[in-house]
């Protein structure tokens, strides 16, 4: 195993991890504040991807257009988040968690059905935009530019969330609601509105991830499932609802995925599952447990 192989595996792991984090970000946010495990998250990620695809087609004309389409997807999915909150989530805030799980699963099925109706069941593949369709080479190391873009996007979303959550007043308010929604209400904070804002932000992140990760994918109605499992594992290992924890966990899982494909290429995913099981046995509360997002 040469040094370049290891370097390549690390960069590849960071890219996979960043992609996982982009999906996990909204998932962990909604869990941290509403304590909802949103099964439908993957479906909204997929809808984001389809919306962006409808805008840019299979061959995006430029990087700008590619990124703008991702933000348009974020806005469209955020609007769907508002609708889902009104129709489903808001009504289930005061009932047992099990109903919420079933409800989000139902939303997932509905969304998958709607995607098939609108965009059909055929596969589509999308090329990266110019500038990202090549590779960066250093000696014998060969890294696709799109991987570097995904790493940058993951970092951008992570730092943005950290900044909003820990440095802005709205973030501190959301943390107050996350850690003690009862006291927040007693202090006159409009808790239902804060929860709605969170749902919209979480869905926007799903849509954004769909748009940003669109290239080099086969777009089909099962896209939602591919990242969702890893994203769920990242949220659990991260400490259920903690953004920083989810980021570290995503990078860890990405690196394990990529490293194990180098070492045991014929058993994809195996090392990841073993890692997750051992990790949870050793540290069931996750990397960063507690009440904070």
């Amino acid at each position, binding site marked *: 195993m040469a040094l370049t192989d290891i370097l390549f595996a690390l960069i590849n792991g960071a890219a996979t991890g960043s992609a996982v984090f982009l999906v996990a970000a909204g998932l962990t946010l909604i869990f941290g504040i509403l304590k909802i495990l949103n099964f439908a998250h993957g479906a909204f990620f997929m809808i984001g991807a389809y919306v962006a695809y409808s805008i840019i087609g299979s061959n995006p004309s430029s990087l700008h257009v590619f990124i703008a389409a991702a933000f348009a997807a974020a806005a469209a999915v955020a609007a769907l988040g508002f609708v889902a909150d009104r129709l489903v989530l808001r009504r289930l805030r005061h009932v047992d968690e099990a109903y919420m799980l079933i409800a989000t699963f139902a939303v997932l099925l509905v969304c998958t059905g709607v995607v098939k109706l609108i965009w059909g069941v055929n596969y589509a593949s999308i090329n990266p935009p110019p500038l990202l369709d090549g590779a960066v080479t250093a000696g014998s190391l060969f890294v696709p530019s799109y991987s570097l873009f995904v790493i940058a996007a993951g970092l951008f979303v992570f730092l943005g969330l950290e900044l909003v959550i820990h440095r802005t007043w709205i973030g501190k308010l959301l943390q107050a609601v996350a*850690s003690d929604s*009862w006291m927040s209400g007693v202090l006159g904070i409009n808790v239902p509105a804060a929860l709605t804002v969170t749902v919209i932000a979480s869905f926007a992140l799903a849509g954004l991830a769909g748009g940003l990760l669109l290239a080099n994918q086969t777009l089909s109605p099962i896209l939602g499932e591919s990242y969702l499992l890893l994203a769920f594992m990242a949220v659990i290992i991260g400490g259920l609802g903690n953004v920083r924890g989810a980021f570290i966990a995503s990078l860890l899982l990405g690196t394990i995925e990529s490293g194990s494909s180098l070492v045991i290429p014929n058993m994809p995913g195996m090392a990841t599952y073993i890692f997750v099981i051992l990790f949870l046995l050793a540290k069931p509360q996750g990397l960063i447990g507690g009440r*904070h997002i």
Partner: protein
Amino acid sequence: MLSVDRIDAFYGDSQILHGVSLTVGEKERVAVVGRNGAGKSTLFKSILNAGPRVRGRIAWEGKDLGAMPTFRRARLGLSLVPEDRRIFDHVTVLENIAMARYAARPGVELEAPEAVLARFPMLVPLKDRMGGRLSGGQQQMVAVARAIAGRPRLMLLDEPTEGLAPVIVEQLARDVNTVCRETGSGLLLSEQNLWFARQCTDRLFLIDTGRIVFDGLWQDLDDNPDLKRRYLAL
């Protein structure tokens, strides 16, 4: 101003309050005393619609509050300081106080958080301390400061002296009195510490197993030593 009319309150199927009635007038200071488990906290939470299921009428300025959610009641000027204080640990003392700004009533100018803090001499040096790093007495002071920061018309203070050292209890009595006088807030105080309750209020309700068993002036209580024996185990 506040009128609670024959309310029953429930946790699940168990009934905690039985036909409780009380009124508090504008700027009035009233105590609710009773043993552990008598239903004081349940009564306060019922008034804010913050936990128990309530049957009966709770009115504010003559209007039935019905099913109005907690945060809207807070915005009418009802400010609850829970017995477990619940200071946010992820923000500073000053930011904890700033969190109360959402309880402001329309058209009412709030004091800056620094000015609120200045009313509590003990808190001034702790302004930038994180909420999670306070002693019990400091937490209680912050909780009162936070409650008063929204300029309430009635502060509901639930067993503030529980677990506090005697000197802190004295300091708290002085601060609560001053703050109520200066801001014009009324006070509904739940206590087991009769000395403290007497310092801060003019009259009292005695509550036992979810029922009001006596109401009157402190003097009236002194005239009935038997009440104290029966309901306060003194």
